[in-house]
C-alpha cells in the first residue's frame, strides 16, 4: 500500500493552521482576563465540572495514548491493550483519595497540600525537585514524539518542528495562562475524541459495525495469538511493576493535579473526575478498534515500513479508510494533542519554579502580586526553552518508555507524600522530605540500572536491576521511608494541625476554623 506520509499534506497544514489560529484567538481572549496569579495558575477558579473533565482528559490523553497504543495493538495485538487499561485505572484512585482534598487544601500546586501542616521550606524544595523530574521526563517524551510526527506528516525537519511546538505552546502559557491552556485542552479533547470516534466508525463500517467481526478477522489473518497476551509482558514482575506505576502515577502527575484548582469547589472537582474518567475510558475502548483496525486494514508490515515503533498506525489507518484529506485531519489532531499536553506540563513546571521555589522558599511567601506574576511568566519562558532544548537533545528516544518512567517517578515521588500528608496524622516534615527525595532519586537510579538503559542503550550483557519499570520497588520504599522517618522525628505542630486540616478538608476553605 502506498502512503503520502513524509511529504507535505495540504489538508494537514490547513487543519493545523486552523487549530493554531483558533487556539491563539482563545489565548488573546484569555490574556485579557489574566491579570493575577489566581488567573494565571488557576483560571480564576471559574471552570465548570464538564469543562474541567474535558480538560483533564485533554491533559491526560497524550500522543502516547493515541499514536503509541494504536501502534502497539496494530503490531502486537492484545498486549497493547494492557497500556489502555493501565492508563485508565489510576482515575478511580484520583477520585477516591486525591481530588477533593487537593481542591480544599491547596492553592496552585500539590505541594500546597503536602506543606499544609508541615514546615514550608523543606517540603516545597523536595516537592519541586520531584515535580521537575516528572515534568522533564514527560516533556522529553512529548517533544520527541512531536518532532518525529511533524517531520513525517508535514515534511519539515525535526528541529524546526520542535521549535514550532515550543513557540506556539509558549504563547498559550505566557499570555493566556491556565485559562487559555484549559480551553486549548478542551478543544483538543473534543477533536481527539471526535477524530477517534469517526475513525473507529469508518473502520467498523467495513465489518457491519461489529467489533467482534473485526477481532475475528484479525485472528484469522494473523493467528489467534493476537487476541491473547504475548511477549510484551513475558516477565510477571515486570508486568506488575509497570501496572502499579501506571495506576498510582496518574495520582502524582503535577499537571493533572494542578487542574483541580481551576474549579470553584470540591463538588465540582468530584464531577470533573467523573467526566474525565468517562471520556478517557471511552477513548481507550476506541483504541481496541483503532489498533486492530490498523492491523487488519493497513497491515503490520506497511506500518513498520513507515515507523519501526508503529507510531504511525493511526494516521495510516486514517489514510486507508478516508483518504489524504482525513489523514490531514487526524495528523492535525495528533499534533494538537501534543501541543496541548506540552502546554499543560510547562505551566505546572512554571508553577513549581515560581510558586513553590521563588515565592514560598526564596521570598518566604511575602512576594507582592506583580512580582509573583512576573516570576511565573519568566519561569514559563525558561520551561519552554528547556523543553525545546530537551526535545532536540533526546531526538530518537523511545517515546512510550519515557512516559512509563515519568509515571514511575510521579508514583514514587509525589503520590506517597500526598496520601500520607492528608490521611496519616503522625506524618512529619522530615518524613515528607525523605519520602519525596527517596522516591525521586531511587526511581531515577533504578531506571539507570535497568535493562533498558544498561543493555539496550549502553550495550552491557546484563543489568544490575532486573525490572524495566522501578515502580514495584520504589513506590513501597517511598511509603516506608516516609513513615519510618516520621515516627523517628516527632513533630508536635504537624500532629496538632491535623484536626484543623481535616476541618478544612471536609468543610472547604471558606468554612470557619474550629
Amino acid at each position: 500500500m502506498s502512503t503520502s506520509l513524509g511529504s507535505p499534506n495540504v489538508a494537514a497544514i490547513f487543519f493545523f493552521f486552523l487549530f493554531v489560529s483558533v487556539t491563539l484567538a482563545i489565548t488573546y481572549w484569555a490574556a485579557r482576563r489574566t491579570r493575577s496569579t489566581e488567573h494565571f495558575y488557576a483560571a480564576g477558579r471559574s471552570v465548570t465540572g464538564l469543562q474541567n473533565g474535558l480538560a483533564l482528559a485533554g491533559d491526560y490523553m497524550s500522543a502516547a495514548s493515541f499514536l503509541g497504543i494504536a501502534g502497539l495493538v496494530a503490531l502486537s495485538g492484545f498486549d497493547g491493550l494492557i497500556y489502555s487499561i493501565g492508563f485508565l485505572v489510576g482515575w478511580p484512585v484520583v477520585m477516591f483519595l486525591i481530588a477533593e482534598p487537593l481542591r480544599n487544601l491547596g492553592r496552585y500546586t500539590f505541594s500546597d497540600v503536602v506543606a499544609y501542616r508541615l514546615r514550608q521550606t523543606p517540603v516545597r524544595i523536595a516537592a519541586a525537585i520531584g515535580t521537575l523530574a516528572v515534568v522533564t521526563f514527560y516533556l522529553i517524551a512529548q517533544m520527541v514524539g512531536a518532532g518525529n510526527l511533524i517531520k513525517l506528516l508535514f515534511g519539515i525537519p525535526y528541529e524546526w518542528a520542535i521549535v514550532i511546538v515550543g513557540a506556539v505552546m509558549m504563547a498559550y502559557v505566557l499570555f493566556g495562562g491556565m485559562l487559555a491552556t484549559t480551553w486549548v485542552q478542551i478543544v483538543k479533547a473534543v477533536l481527539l475524541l471526535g477524530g477517534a470516534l469517526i475513525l473507529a466508525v469508518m473502520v467498523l463500517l467495513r465489518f457491519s459495525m461489529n467489533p467482534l467481526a473485526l477481532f475475528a478477522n484479525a485472528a484469522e489473518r494473523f493467528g489467534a495469538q493476537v487476541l491473547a497476551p504475548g511477549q510484551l509482558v513475558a516477565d510477571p514482575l515486570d508486568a506488575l511493576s509497570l501496572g502499579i506505576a501506571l495506576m498510582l502515577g496518574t495520582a502524582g502527575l503535577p499537571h493533572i493535579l494542578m487542574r483541580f484548582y481551576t474549579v470553584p469547589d470540591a463538588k465540582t472537582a468530584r464531577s470533573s473526575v467523573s467526566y474525565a474518567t468517562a471520556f478517557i475510558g471511552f477513548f481507550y475502548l476506541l483504541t481496541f478498534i483503532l489498533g486492530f483496525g490498523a492491523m487488519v486494514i493497513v497491515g503490520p508490515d506497511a506500518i513498520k515500513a513507515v515507523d519501526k515503533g508503529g507510531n504511525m498506525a493511526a494516521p495510516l489507518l486514517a489514510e486507508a479508510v478516508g483518504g489524504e484529506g482525513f489523514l490531514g485531519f487526524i495528523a492535525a489532531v495528533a499534533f494538537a494533542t501534543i501541543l496541548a499536553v506540552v502546554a499543560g506540563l510547562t505551566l505546572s513546571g512554571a508553577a513549581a519554579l515560581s510558586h513553590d521555589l521563588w515565592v514560598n522558599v526564596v521570598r518566604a511567601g511575602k512576594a507582592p502580586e506583580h512580582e509573583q506574576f512576573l516570576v511565573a511568566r519568566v519561569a514559563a519562558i525558561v520551561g519552554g526553552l528547556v523543553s525545546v532544548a530537551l526535545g532536540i537533545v533526546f531526538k530518537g528516544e523511545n517515546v512510550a518508555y519515557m512516559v512509563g518512567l515519568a509515571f514511575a517517578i510521579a508514583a514514587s515521588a509525589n503520590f506517597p507524600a500526598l496520601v500520607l500528608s492528608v490521611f496519616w496524622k503522625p506524618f512529619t516534615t522530615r518524613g515528607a522530605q525523605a519520602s519525596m527525595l527517596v522516591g525521586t532519586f531511587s526511581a531515577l537510579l533504578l531506571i539507570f540500572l535497568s535493562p533498558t538503559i544498561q543493555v539496550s542503550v549502553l550495550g552491557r550483557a546484563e543489568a544490575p536491576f532486573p525490572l524495566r519499570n522501578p515502580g514495584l520497588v520504589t513506590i513501597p520504599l517511598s511509603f516506608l521511608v516516609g513513615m519510618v522517618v516520621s515516627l523517628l522525628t516527632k513533630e508536635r505542630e504537624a500532629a496538632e494541625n491535623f484536626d484543623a486540616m481535616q476541618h478544612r478538608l471536609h468543610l472547604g476553605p471558606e468554612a470557619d476554623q474550629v
Partner: protein
Amino acid sequence: MSEKQRALEALAAAQWKLALRLTAAMMAVYFGFILLVAWAKPLLGRQLVPGLSLGILLGALVIVTAWILIWIYVRWANSHYDATVTRIRETGR
C-alpha cells in the same frame, strides 16, 4: 471535644473507609487482571465466541469496573457526604 469536631471526625472516618474499600476493589480487579495476563496466557486467549477472547472481554470489564466504582463513590458523596457537610456547616454538628 466539641460536637462539631465529633461530627466531622465521624464523617472523615466514613469517607476514608469508603475511599479505602473502593481503592482496594479497583486494585484487586486490576492486579487480578495483570496477574492473569502474566500467568494465564492460554486461558485469556480462549475465544468465547469468534473474535472475543476472554482477555479482551476482561480488559473491557476492567474499564467498566472503574466506571462503576466511581459511580458508587459519586452517588454516596453527592447524597450522604454533601448533606452531612452542609449540616455540619449550618448547625455545627
